[in-house]
């Protein structure tokens, strides 16, 4: 049995996942929405997190806030940060502009989270 705190929303539901390896299907309780159930399923198999950071802008002292467009496998967070540190962005960018596809060899993209010109 695994106990998890859901991180999908500020409610922070206490989710219990019963013996994932014993039975074929996961028995998940304690979540209050379908997203909590999905979170629990992912969390006990391949936990993922959204990564946010800032990246440098060419010829400017300003910084651009960025995020991954989907949660990234948790074990790739630090590898991804190394890659993010090397990125130099050319303006203009808009919210959602893809700055790096397949970040750290994963299936997620790094996107701008601010309009900057």
């Amino acid at each position: 049995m695994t106990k998890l705190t859901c991180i999908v929303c500020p409610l922070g539901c206490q989710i219990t996942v019963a013996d994932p390896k014993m039975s074929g299907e996961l028995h998940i309780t304690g979540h209050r929405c379908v997203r909590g159930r999905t979170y629990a399923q992912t969390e006990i198999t391949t936990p993922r997190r959204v990564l946010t950071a800032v990246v440098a802008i060419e010829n400017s002292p300003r910084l651009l806030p960025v995020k991954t467009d989907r949660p990234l496998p948790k074990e790739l967070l630090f590898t991804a940060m190394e890659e993010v540190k090397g990125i130099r962005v050319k303006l203009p960018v808009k919210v959602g502009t893809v700055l790096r596809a397949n970040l750290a060899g994963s299936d997620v993209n790094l996107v701008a989270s601010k309009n900057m010109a």
Partner: protein
Amino acid sequence: MRRSRIDLAVIGAGPAGLAAAIAAAKAGVGRIALFERQTEPGGILQQCIHNGFGLYYFREELTGPEYAQRFIDRLTDYPQIHLQTASTVVKITPQREIYVVNEQTGIRYYQAKAIILAMGCRERPRGALKIPGTRPAGIFTAGTVQQLMNIYGLAPGKEAVILGSGDIGLIMARRLTLEGIKVRAVVEILPCSTGLKRNLVQCLEDFSIPLYLRHTVTRINGEKRLTSVTVAPVNQDLQPIKEQAFTLPCDTLILSVGLIPENELSLMAGVELDPVTKGPLLTSTYQTTVPGIFACGNVAHVHDLVDDVSIEGEITGQAAAAFLNGESPTEPYIPLRTGRNIRTVVPQYVSLSNTTTLYIRPLFPEEDVTLKVGPATRRFKAVTPGETIRFRFDPTQLKSKPEKIPVSLEVETCD
């Protein structure tokens, strides 16, 4: 000095001010001046690059800058809102005169028919904590570290201890760790974190950062630069147990020990403050004790979620519009009285004709309690000071007009 006449002045273009100005414009208010001391609107959201904003308001998960952008984009639909950035309001009067300083245009003077205060809050600094020790470099508030890292790209140090487990502190623990700065520990004097549960998981547990509950920093050590902090557990009365003190080497101490609404301007205007929230006393339409002066967002009371700030901003903008239309309700407002295990309740006065959403903060964590607001009740499995209770109070439940309405959290008794 030239005087400009305007209908509505909104002070602060953070989430509260943006929502209030847009709602007022939508409700037909003509000349609106939105004053912002920073060079761009958005307020503190611009440095909150992490995600988790907007789940309630937009039903999606956004970062701070994205959340702000949604409102900034809406401004273009309302040319009657004059956004004035790099413009600091230095004085307001009970007669609703506003003095604004800007580097290019100098001092300007406005006469407004209504004012919405949306100045936000600031962090409690080291001086508010009375920690003994030396005064070296390397002590920052969490929001300052956030600004240094996310706006200016500067690292505050190499090894940090965070005092206080509020959300900003937890968020910064993760941010520092991802940038390669060692976070030795988060130290919290209370028996529970004051941050959201999700942040304990994704900011501390994910990175195995220790959380010392019932502990505090008892001494700051170091001459020019911080070299370590002394940490000790505390007893029931929150007094340090010196015999069990230990030292954590670090060059950076980050304080995440609470926020104080920024009400210097409110006081100049004669607005009466609540001694506990440190924000103005408010009616259910967010009007202060001075007619025509309203307040919303973190200047009114510190919120857990920006989504609530936006909703409150909208209620306030609409209320200011109604006031300007002469619809100002002269109805009696009934004061709420905080009782057992209630730290704050906002608004402090409720209307007898409309439902009011109350934001209630308990004093201490408790399980299996019943919230009582006059005759209305609601059961809770657990409450904690870190999570505001939202409660819709319906005045039709009142049988007679009371002098005041008591608000309390009661433990069930078997009878």
